[in-house]
């Protein structure tokens, strides 16, 4: 956990420092897991969201905050594909939009009989998800293992 924390700090430290940060509603935008990050400005518009972008060696992080207060961070590899998403905020993200072609897999794996209502863990070949929280406070992430950049630490996905 300690390294996870420090990694996260590194990522967002860069962001705050303004390294290749483009503020608010400019270039790249919201994207869907597994899809190109370059053709999705319309998604940002649909969500009426604000976007900040940070470039890190080997990948780029787009932070999209919707008016509801939920933030989605999208991790884009050097091939321009969204390989991971992470969310935090008072509402769950629109999973159909966020997970795209992986949404059916999410639904299928999340639908087994269950006794609790607060945790969801999916570990598939194509999709890994962990989702926690309760109303007004949700937190989670999803990624596609095959799209991870070389030597990328998934601890950075948060």
């Amino acid at each position, binding site marked *: *956990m300690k390294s996870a924390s420090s990694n996260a700090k590194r990522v967002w430290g860069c962001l705050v420092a303004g390294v290749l940060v483009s503020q608010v509603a400019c270039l790249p935008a919201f994207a869907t897991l597994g899809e190109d990050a370059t053709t999705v400005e319309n998604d940002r518009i649909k969500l009426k969201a604000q976007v900040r972008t940070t470039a890190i060696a080997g990948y780029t992080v787009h932070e999209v905050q919707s*008016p509801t207060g939920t933030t989605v961070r999208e991790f884009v590899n050097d091939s321009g594909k969204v390989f991971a998403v992470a969310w935090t905020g008072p509402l769950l993200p629109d999973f159909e939009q966020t997970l795209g072609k992986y949404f059916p897999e999410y639904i299928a794996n999340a639908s*087994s009989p269950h006794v609790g209502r607060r945790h969801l863990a999916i570990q598939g070949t194509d999709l890994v998800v962990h989702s926690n929280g309760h109303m007004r406070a949700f937190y989670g992430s999803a990624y596609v293992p095959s799209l991870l950049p070389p030597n990328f*630490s998934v601890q950075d996905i948060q």
Partner: protein
Amino acid sequence: MRANLFAALIGMLCVAGCGGGGSNLGGGGGGGGTPTGSNVQAIVVDSGPAKIASSNAPAINTAFTTVTICAPGSTSNCQTIDHIQVDTGSSGLRILSEVLTITLPVQKDTTGNVIAECVGFVDGSSWGPIRQADVKIGGETALTQEVQIIGDTSYAVPSSCKGAGATATDPNLEETVVAFGANGILGVAPYVSDCGPACLQQNNGTYYTCATTTTCAVSAMAENLQVSNPVAAFTTDNNGVIIQLPSVATSGTAAVNGSLIFGIGTQSNNMLGSATVFNLGSGGYLTTKYKLGTLTTSFIDTGSNAWYFPDSSIPGCSTNKGFYCPTGGDASLQATLVNPVNNATKLVNFSVTNADSLFQGSKSVIGATSGLAGDSSQFATSGSSSINGSNVFDYGLPFHYGKSVFVVIEGKNSSAGMGPYFAF
């Protein structure tokens, strides 16, 4: 059966927590014995309503109570419903249409359209219109409350309401008692409305208004029209609740009885006493120090049926995936809960038991165990990378065994100041 059940769960829900002695109920309201009074309602932790208890997924570590609802203003058009889950992680009353036998009027917005909701929980979403009811719990009454009727087919599910929780009849939603896991849910979180300010925005994905029975569209919703914690609307004892449960062994038991006590510091049976207050920080979270890590998205929640936290040093189960299976006996652990506002701390001792062993073989049904714990984050490895990105420590129902846990609602006062906060 239980092992099969858990195998099907893809790993969720867990906990362990071995509280102290049964007579030490913390705070000032303890002292042993069953509290009495008009502000006390019994709760039970068992395998759930018959349909669930006899299913391949009986409830475990789920607190239930009984609620009476009446058509507004009526004392005869009423229904008493058992096995309503008590949830400090959400706000408001929701009833499964499947068990509802009385007719309740719909709630309309200011333009006359019926309000409906696509309520999202982490593991499943549920659709249903909002109807009005007087809500009676123990000796307390909340008049004309907005109550969601889940699975009420009077208003067609919009295509945009999708989520986990598939059933054979609805591939996207939890609309039945079996799929939902209870006859209903009573949200007594430290908030008034369920969605709060987020649903003042148009694109909230949660609230809808229906011009006709087949045309429901997502809509901004004022907080006073949102499904809300009925406790805040009681005429007395309305600043929060206490969840009081006896100690439970890690080896488990079929059922335990406890109390849901209304009001904090309003009666002799609900004094805060020496309980430590944990104000909610930004985002509604608390902080936990566990081993070498600091987990900034921690929360206390009766709606979670286990302790969930990341610890790669505890072996995961082979059968009950997602749960911990320590070897060589129960793992004795401790976490330090931190108030993110004033940095006050309190140590929490708990034990994690081997879930595969617990549910192995023909042992009788276990409705409650303090030893069940699961991993909030770990998914083995991918290539050279370990996967451990979670900042979550979830103090689920097992945390509550052997304690009085106080929940004070936002905007309500108490001897320890304004809510929202938890205390124990």
